[in-house]
């Protein structure tokens, strides 16, 4: 795990060393050569690559890392922006997990029927739409035209809970649609496979009623791939993977911060956010592995 994080930090850093003149990002408009040289020296751009890497990693881990363009402490900035991304991720996560499971179970229950067919169609449409397009459509038609919900921006939970909620409904929906599509189809096919397994026949032969068979055996095993997927997806969203949703709805979260930093060629935020995101994925992966053992008694840690 540490190796992966190390490799990621090195890779991210190396990617940005391809930029020829980083001092231009820090200097203001029309810098003189003297200013540029001064910045190069002060920020250490004239040092060899590996030294720059070590310097920057030290700054990251001591929490003192400063952004190139905005002279703010990146870690502090992340801390400020985290509640936005967390609100988006947790709310959307609850929605997509529950609806994904619900639709998957409904589809499998009446497999081949009209409900199944329509849910599959919806799932396929959801998976085929780019998130930012869906977000823009929702924001425009429900936000601007109908005025039922605000088209964008974020209101803090502590300022006004109802407004916080209203501002997040559309982003939650936009972000969830894709995942609901994927999860419902994966769950549906897993359930249909599991139902034909031998141990389900045994359970029925033992005399368990259908509901018991479904919950204790079929669902428990079918939910395993869903749990893995959810762990990975949720970690990805928290770690800044909701870039598109946040940008479209003007939610100033980690994702949008990352996107802006990349476009400004601002390395420190990108480095820190990438590490943060990868770290989240790895940690949650470990939690998911533990959950596996709970759900599937055949697996021993």
């Amino acid at each position, binding site marked *: 795990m540490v190796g*992966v994080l190390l490799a990621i930090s090195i890779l991210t850093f190396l990617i940005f060393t391809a930029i020829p003149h980083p001092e231009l990002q820090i200097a203001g408009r029309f810098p003189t050569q003297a200013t540029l040289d001064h910045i190069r020296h002060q920020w250490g751009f004239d040092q060899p690559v590996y030294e720059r890497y070590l310097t920057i990693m030290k700054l990251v881990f001591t929490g003192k890392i400063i952004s190139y363009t905005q002279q703010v402490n990146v870690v502090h900035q992340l801390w400020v922006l985290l509640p936005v991304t967390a609100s988006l991720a947790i709310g959307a996560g609850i929605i997509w997990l529950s609806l994904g499971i619900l639709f998957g179970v409904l589809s499998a229950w009446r497999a081949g029927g009209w409900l199944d067919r329509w849910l599959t169609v919806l799932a396929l449409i959801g998976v085929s739409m780019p998130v*930012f397009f869906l977000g*823009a459509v929702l924001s*425009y038609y429900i936000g601007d035209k109908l005025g039922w919900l605000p088209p964008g921006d974020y209101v803090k939970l502590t300022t006004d809970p109802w407004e916080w909620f209203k501002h997040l409904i559309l982003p939650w929906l936009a972000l969830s649609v894709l995942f609901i599509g994927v999860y419902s189809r994966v769950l549906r096919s897993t359930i249909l496979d599991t139902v034909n397994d031998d141990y389900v026949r045994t359970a029925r032969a033992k005399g368990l009623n259908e509901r018991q068979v479904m919950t204790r055996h079929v669902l428990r095993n079918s939910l395993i791939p869903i749990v893995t997927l959810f762990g990975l997806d949720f970690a990805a969203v928290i770690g800044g*993977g909701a870039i598109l949703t946040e940008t479209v709805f003007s939610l100033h979260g980690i994702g949008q911060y990352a996107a802006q930093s990349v*476009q400004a060629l601002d390395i420190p935020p990108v480095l820190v956010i990438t590490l943060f995101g990868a770290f989240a994925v790895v940690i949650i992966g470990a939690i998911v592995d533990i959950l596996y053992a709970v759900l599937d008694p055949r697996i021993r840690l």
Partner: protein
Amino acid sequence: MSTTTTGTELGADLPERRDAAGEELPPGIGPYALAWRRLRRNKVALAFGALFLVIVILCLLAPVYAHDIAHTGPNDQHVDTALDQFGLPIGPTWHAKFFLGADNTGRDVAVRLLYGGRNSLQIGAEATLITMLLATIFGVLAGYYRGATDGLISRAFEVIWAFPVYLLGISLGVVLAISGLDLGFIHISGSSLLITSLIIGLIYTPYVGKSIRGQVLGLREREFIDAARQQGIGNFRIMFHEILPNVSSTIIVFIPLVLANAILTEAGLSYLGAGVRPPNASWGTMIGDGIRLLPSAVHTMLVPGIMLMLCVLGVNVFGDGVRDALDPRARIRIDH
């Protein structure tokens, strides 16, 4: 009495075979022919595949449309005719000129849609090709040789896959757009579409590669590989002639999946400014431009978005059909 699909409807028109004693043998048909027959019966999948083909053909005919029907190029700005008195672009006229309206600098949306579609589809196709090539090569190598080779390749897959997808994409996209790619023997300019294709292709390689590797790990233990080794066949020939044909159905199943995701990812990257850059256009950049004009001129956003959605939907439904045809009992695991 045959109860499999081979023997009943799907094999109904196969020629009769008889063995040496004149007894009737069950009709023979190979797995790909069988899959093709299954696919042919799936009208919905075929319909959506046709939809995708129609979109591709329309985009390929972009110059014809621009020259002969709309009489305007994708970057020609007609500020005088295309903007109304408020300076807002006109909506769809449903006539030859400005069939789907204009954008905020007076360019014909329909023409741009087709030209942009060429870029989006080109990047999608190139990225898919790159992913399948790299994933197959490295997946087979890792699964067959195991040991240190597998260790190295799997670690590389893990690192790439652990990167938050869009962060890797936009970092590479922005940096390579500035500096271009210069690997000594390969020089790619920063404004080339190939850069975006390479990035997207690289991002999806671990996903497919892990699946292929898993399958090869199982395959290499089978008897026919032992038999081949005992015949003295070298490793590369084994990988090419024995292992590769057996992973080919996995590869075929993944292609539409990767293509759909590649097109969507390109749109996302371009929207963020890290994919296709001006003066090139793609559906992603067009949607982005349209979004920035909201709440006015909603057609500038809707038109490329709906086109993109229809295209990806076509690929997805057809891909589902291909998967059902090749693997009706879902033995190929796509999730990991």
